[in-house]
């Protein structure tokens, strides 16, 4: 009992009256932050949707030039990482220090795999001259401008997503550091909880990005 009170009072910030208030506030705060992230990505999704509608043929061709198999693989990797993240949160709820560490490491590894595959994909694009800029050239259409638009949006959207993944990886490292020191217990695991929310959000963004960028109109030549 004293241990619980100890954990509580260690972590309780002075603006809060109870640990429950603190936890609820932190969680609510993270949800609001994620809503702002939806609006942030939303602007890019909007631009993409509008241009897709304006240039359906070129965008379809450009989509087809992306490797959907690798994209699907990466999707699976991220989904697994969300699973391991859930397991980490569960371990924290149960106060199992070793399990938290194991699952956080797994999540981090899967996240790094995702980023590695992304880097590979981007390199493919570089080799194929699909990176917007002076050396951009997309075979098969005279509409180079719209083709470049697709890839600009592709890189902007996946780049922004990757940036969020990198930040997520950083957060996981921070969590690992504190988990190793036994900071998380069944009574106080809020940071793991809200980091989990963030990680799932980044995953969900990808779930939208993948079909929108890779899968629509793949049959178009």
């Amino acid at each position, binding site marked *: 009992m004293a241990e619980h009170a100890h954990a509580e009072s260690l972590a309780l910030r002075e603006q809060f009256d109870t640990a429950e208030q603190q936890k609820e506030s932190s969680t609510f705060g993270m949800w609001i932050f994620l809503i702002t992230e939806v609006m942030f990505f939303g602007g890019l999704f909007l631009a993409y949707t509008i241009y897709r509608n304006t*240039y*359906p*043929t070129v965008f379809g061709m450009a989509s087809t030039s992306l490797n959907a198999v690798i994209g699907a693989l990466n999707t699976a990797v991220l989904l697994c990482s969300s699973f391991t993240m859930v397991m980490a949160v569960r371990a924290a709820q149960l106060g199992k220090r070793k399990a938290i560490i194991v699952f956080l490491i797994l999540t981090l590894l899967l996240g790094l795999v995702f980023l590695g595959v992304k880097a590979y994909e981007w390199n493919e694009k570089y080799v194929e001259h699909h990176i917007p800029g002076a050396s951009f050239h997309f075979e098969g*259409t*005279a*509409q180079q*401008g*719209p083709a470049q638009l697709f890839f600009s949006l592709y890189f902007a959207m996946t780049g922004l997503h990757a940036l969020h993944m990198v930040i997520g990886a950083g957060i996981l490292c921070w969590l690992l550091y504190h988990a190793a020191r036994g900071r998380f217990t069944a009574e106080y695991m809020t940071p793991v909880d809200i980091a989990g929310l963030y990680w799932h959000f980044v995953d969900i963004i990808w779930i939208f990005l993948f079909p929108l960028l890779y899968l629509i109109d793949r049959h178009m030549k």
Partner: protein
Amino acid sequence: MKVPLFPEQASNFAPDVDHLLYYLVAVSVFFTVLIFAAIFYFAIRYRRRSEHELPEPVHAGLALEIAWSVIPFGLTMIMFGWGANIFFKESRPPKDAAQVYVVAKQWMWKVQHMEGQREINELHIPVGRPVKLVMTSEDVIHSFFVPAFRTKQDVVPGRYSTTWFTATKPGKYHLFCAEYCGTKHSGMGGWVYAMEPQDYQIWLSGGRAFGSLAENGEKLYQDLACGNCHKVDGSGRCPSLAGLFGRNVQLADGRVVKADEAYLRESILQPNAKVVAGYQPLMPTFQGLVTEEGVLQLIEYIKSLSPQPAAGAGTTPAEINVNPGAAGAAPSNR
């Protein structure tokens, strides 16, 4: 010294807009005076007379709240409807409007009349005849604003925008650029000259030396060898352009679009954006090879290949009639 406080009315729209202004001002003055007077009165009548005063709270009535929501809303709906009505009219040029092309660039207005007259920072138009401007920009967004007409329309690169008006009074009216466009935005102005119809015809005939837009377009068409593919009888690799303007076109992706000015412009500058059904995307782009003005000339030429008279075509130079009361007589105003 002239200190105008109200702009001249020189177009068909001006009285409409001014009447709307009067209504708006009347409603505003009413509510402003009401609020000011109420505050003034209450502040004096109920001023604090002793430090220990404690007034009774007055409870809001739902009826009052509804009343002062609904009544203002009703008044604003009149503002909405009235303004929308004017806006609709402004967006529907009459079919017989004379068409003039405007190309904006930093920092000047280039005006092209069908009959060949070219102007810089000036627009001559006849009184009493609807005039439709088809406009585009070569660089940034500008805006064609004539305060005396109460009309304004942004001029955007990469597309055509239109505005129309009928001048109702001869005179010289300010033309301003109303969308910030860089260094000389302030200086990108000029004059609109509304002229009596006969004076306008005389002025217009001075453009004969330039050749009409359509004539210049035909020359450009030949220079660019368009006819190598676009054979008149349709036997070439590309569709015939005869009778194209104004027709519906079936595209390869199934869509049906109208062959208007915007379509023609896009077809010249981004030919593979809309490929005609039954044809291959073979046409090279002429972006960089043809200026916006060149595009306008080609469009006018292509229009001249259509059987029906192109909207707003003026009289050809050979037919300019300087007799008053003949060509150029104004149809009734809207």
